[in-house]
C-alpha cells in the first residue's frame, strides 16, 4: 500500500462553472491502476467523479484518458509507474495528472464525446465486409497469414487513445484518423473483401485520408493493444501505391515516391528537392510548369519560410534543389544494400507474428555515435560545396 495524489481535470456541466483541477488522495498497492485509484476516490470521497469504465483489464476500451499528458487506458496504467513518471517529469513529489482525452469535446469530468470525433469517422470508412456474390457453402478459403495479419487491426478496442494523441487531427479535425484508418485496413487486408481497390481510391482521394497522416508515431505510443495504427496507415499507402493510385489531392503518393528515391540516392532528406519532386515528379533541377505543380509550390512557400525561420531548414543553400550533401564514405552503398534487402524480404512488423520488441536481441551499439556521423556529414558537405 502506498499513498498517491491524483490531480484530476474536472468539469461538472450542470454547475455553471468552468473546468477545474481537484486533488484526491488515494491509498493502494503500486501494482494497481490509475483507474483503480480513480474508483477509490469515487467510492470513498466523491461519487460524482465521472469516468467511463467497465472491464478493468484493457479489453473493453471504456477508460481512455490522459495520464501525465500521455493518452492511454486508465486501467492499463499502473499507479506506481504513473507516480514515478510524474516525479521524473516535474521533479520532486508531484501528483499524477489525469485529464480527459484530447481532440474530443468533454461531456463531464473524464467522459468525452466519442460519437462526433471517433464513431462518425469509423462509419466513414464503410466498416463492414463487402464480399463479392453469394457466400460459399463452407468457409471462405484464404491464406492463414492473411487472417493473422488483419488480426492486429481487429485487436483494436475502439478506446480512442490514438485519436486523443493524434497530432494531425489536432491540425485537421477532419482527418479520418488513426483508429478509423486502422479499421479500414482490416477490410483492405481481408482477402474476402471485394472492394479493396474502391476502398483505397476513396481513402487516397479524400484530402483528410491516408496522406493526411504525418508519420509522427504518437498513435503507436498511445495504443494500449499494439494495433500500431500508423503502421496500418502505411500499409494502406503501400497497397494504394501497388494499385497505381497516384493522383491524390495531397500529392501523397508522389511525396512517398520522391522520399524513397531520394533516400536511396542521397541518404538524407533534401528538403527542396522533396517539395519539387512531390509536386512535379521526374523533373530534375528545373520546374515543370504544370498548373498543379506551380500551385503546389506556391502553397508550400509559407511552410518553407517558416522552416527557415525556425531553423528546420538550416542552410539557405539547401533550398537550391540538387545541392545537398552526400553521406560520408561508403555509407550510401549501405543504404542501397538496405533497400535491396527490403525489396527481397518483405517484412511486416506484426505483433501477432513477431511478438514484442523485447523478444528481439538488440544489435550491439555501433561504434559510430551520432556526433561522429554529424561531424563527418558536415565535412562531406563542405567538400562538396567548395
Amino acid at each position, binding site marked *: 500500500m502506498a499513498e498517491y495524489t491524483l490531480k484530476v481535470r474536472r468539469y461538472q456541466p450542470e454547475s455553471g462553472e468552468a473546468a477545474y483541477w481537484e486533488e484526491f488522495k488515494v491509498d493502494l498497492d503500486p501494482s494497481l491502476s490509475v483507474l483503480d485509484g480513480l474508483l477509490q476516490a469515487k467510492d470513498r470521497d466523491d461519487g*460524482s467523479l465521472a469516468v467511463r469504465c467497465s*472491464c478493468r483489464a484493457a479489453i*473493453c476500451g471504456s477508460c481512455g484518458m490522459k495520464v501525465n499528458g500521455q493518452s492511454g487506458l486508465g486501467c492499463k496504467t499502473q499507479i506506481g509507474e504513473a507516480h514515478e513518471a510524474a516525479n521524473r517529469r516535474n521533479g520532486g513529489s508531484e501528483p499524477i495528472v489525469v485529464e480527459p482525452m484530447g481532440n474530443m469535446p468533454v461531456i463531464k469530468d473524464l467522459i468525452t464525446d466519442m460519437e462526433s470525433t471517433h464513431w462518425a469517422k469509423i462509419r466513414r470508412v464503410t466498416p463492414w465486409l463487402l464480399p463479392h456474390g453469394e457466400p460459399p457453402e463452407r468457409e471462405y478459403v484464404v491464406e492463414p497469414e492473411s487472417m493473422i495479419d488483419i488480426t492486429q487491426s481487429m485487436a483494436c478496442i*475502439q478506446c480512442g487513445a490514438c485519436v486523443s494523441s493524434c497530432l494531425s487531427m489536432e491540425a485537421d479535425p477532419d482527418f479520418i484518423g488513426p483508429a478509423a484508418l486502422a479499421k479500414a485496413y482490416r477490410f483492405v487486408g481481408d482477402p474476402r473483401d471485394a472492394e479493396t481497390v474502391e476502398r483505397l481510391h476513396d481513402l487516397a482521394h479524400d484530402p483528410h485520408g491516408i496522406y493526411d497522416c504525418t508519420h509522427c508515431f504518437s498513435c503507436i505510443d498511445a495504443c494500449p493493444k499494439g494495433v500500431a495504427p500508423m503502421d496500418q496507415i502505411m500499409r494502406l499507402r503501400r497497397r494504394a501505391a501497388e494499385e497505381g493510385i497516384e493522383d491524390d489531392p495531397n500529392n501523397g503518393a508522389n511525396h512517398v515516391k520522391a522520399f524513397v528515391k531520394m533516400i536511396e540516392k542521397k541518404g538524407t532528406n533534401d528538403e527542396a528537392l522533396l517539395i519539387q519532386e512531390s509536386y512535379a515528379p521526374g523533373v530534375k533541377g528545373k520546374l515543370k510548369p504544370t498548373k498543379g505543380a506551380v500551385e503546389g509550390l506556391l502553397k508550400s512557400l509559407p511552410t518553407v519560410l517558416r522552416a527557415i525561420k525556425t531553423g528546420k531548414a538550416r542552410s539557405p543553400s539547401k533550398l537550391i534543389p540538387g545541392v545537398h550533401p552526400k553521406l560520408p564514405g561508403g555509407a550510401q552503398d549501405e543504404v542501397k544494400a538496405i533497400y535491396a534487402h527490403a525489396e527481397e524480404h518483405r517484412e511486416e512488423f506484426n505483433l501477432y507474428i513477431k511478438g514484442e520488441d523485447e523478444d528481439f536481441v538488440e544489435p550491439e551499439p555501433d561504434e559510430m555515435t551520432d556526433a561522429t556521423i554529424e561531424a563527418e556529414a558536415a565535412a562531406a558537405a563542405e567538400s562538396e560545396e567548395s
Partner: protein
Amino acid sequence: MPKHDVLVIGAGLAGQRAALAAAEQGVSVGILSKVHPVRSHSNAAQGGINAALNPGDSWESHAFDTIKGSDYLGDQDAVEIMAREAPEEILHMEHLGVTFHRNEEGKLGTRAFGGASAARTYYVADITGQAIMHVLYEQLMKHSDQVARYEEWFCTALALDEEGECRGVVTRNIADGSMELFEAKAVILACGGNGQVWKPTTNALICTGDGIAMAYRVGAKLMDMEMIQYHPTTLAGKGFLITEGARGEGAHLLNAKGERFMERYAPNKMELASRDVVSRAEQTEINEGRGFPDGTVALDITVVPKKRVHEALREIVLVGRDFAGVDITREPIHIKPGNHYTMGGVKTDVEGRTDVPGLYAAGETACVSVHGGNRLGANSLLDTLIFGRRSGADAAARAKRIEGSRPSREALEAEQAQIDAIAAREKGSGRRVSEIKLELGTTMDAKVAVFRDEAGIAEALETVRRLKQEAESAYIDDKGQIFNQDLLAAIELGYMLDNAECTCVAALERKESRGAQYRTDFPERNDEEWLKHIDLQLTDDGPEISYSEVTITQWEPQERTY
C-alpha cells in the same frame, strides 16, 4: 414515446445477434445498452466458440460433452438444438467477416478446450469474443436503417400492459438523465450475467445482473440460480481471466511442489477436465497446503512454443505483463479459481420465451438450460449466438402476429419517483453504495464459492437480506442529470442484491453436489432426489421455490469422470 416492434436490452453478442435476427424478419428493432455496444462484456470471451464442424466430429459428440459437462442438469432438447445449429452459425459469422484462425489449407482451424472429446473450438487468437462482437457491430452499423441503436441508455424496469404482457421498458438516457417509456411488442433481455455480486470476479463492472433482476421483479421464473461457475485460471486479487485456451494449447497446472496435480483428479483429461472439476482440484490443493503462500497454484505456459504463444495467446502475454508483472513465455503465473459465469438465469424455452408473455431472454441472462450445473469452455459464445438468434426471430414473429397494446405509464412514474427518492437521501443518512457492494462481494466469495455448506450459505443469505435493508437508505453524492453514474450504481446494487438472494436460496435448497454446486455437507450427486431444476419466483415473502423436470432425450445420467 420511442416505439419498436422488438426491443433488445443489452448489446453484447446475444443482444446484437437477436437484433440482427429480428431485423431480418422485416420488423422495426431497437437495441438499448447502458454502455456503448462494443464495451459489452462479450469482449472478454477469449478462447473461442465450439462447433462440430470438422468431418470427423459430430453434433452428438458435442451435445454429449455439453451434457456431461453440465453434470446432467442441462436440458437435452436445448443442448441438441445448440449443438446441431452450431456449424451453420459459425459459417454465418465467418461469412459476415469474423477473422477466424485458419489451418495450413486456409480453412477454419480449431484448438482443444476443456471437457471436449474433440478439438472443436474455433477462434481468433485469444480475442474471439471481441472479434465476433466487433463484426456484429459492423453489421449493426450496416443495417442502421432497420436497427435503431440507443447507446448509453439504462433500463430501470420492464413495463407490462393490463393483461400482464411485457410491452416495453422504462429507461434513463444516461447522457441527459431524461426518463423514457419505450414501447414494444416484444422485449428481449440480453444483459449478461451477475459476476459483480462476487468480489473478485473476472466479470466487468457492468455485469450486475440487471436483466435477471428486472425479469424476476415482474414475475418471471428464475432457474438454476445456485449454479455459479468459478473459472480455474484467474489472477489472484484482481480476478482477471487467463483463457482456458492456454491449457488448450498445452499449459500445465502445478502446485507449489511443482507437481502436475491434475493427475490425481482427472487422469485422462488432466488440465482439460470440466471447469468445476479443475477449480475444485486447485482449491483442494490450496486448502491442503500445497499451494503458494498467496493462496494460488501456478499455470505454466512456458511449455507452449513461443511462436504459438504470440500468435494464439497474445492477450495473455499482455495480461501477464501489465497486470501481474510476469512474462508468461518465461515463467509460470500464479492463478486461482475465481467467479466467472452465471449458468442460471431467467428461465426460458428454446425460443427464448420466459414465463411472462412478450418477454424473452438470451445469453448469460437466460437459463434455457444448456449449461446446467457447469458450462463448458467455448459454449457461452455459442449459447449467445444460437439463442440470441432464435429469440430475435421468435420475437419478430410475435410482433407480426399480435396487435399493439400500450404499456402502463405507471411504471415510468414509479421509476421516476424511486430515482427522486434515491437522490433525496441526505449524505450520511445511511451507508455508501460502494460499501454495501464491497460487503456483498466479499461475503459471497467467502460463503457461496467453490466449496459450500449449509451454515455458510445461510450466513450469506442473512447478510444479503440485511444489506437489502441497508440499501434502502444508502445515499449518493451526485444529484445531477448528466452521466449520473452514482445513481446508476445505486440501482445496480438493487439488482445485485436480488441476484444474490436468489443464488443463496437456491444453493441452500439443493442438498447435493452437482456441477458448480459442491456442498461439503452433501458431497455426492443425488439423482434420485435432485435431478431437477430449482425455480424461483418473486412473492411478497421473497423468492418462492418450485421444481421443474430436466429434459432427457437420449443420454441417461452416468457417473462423471475425466
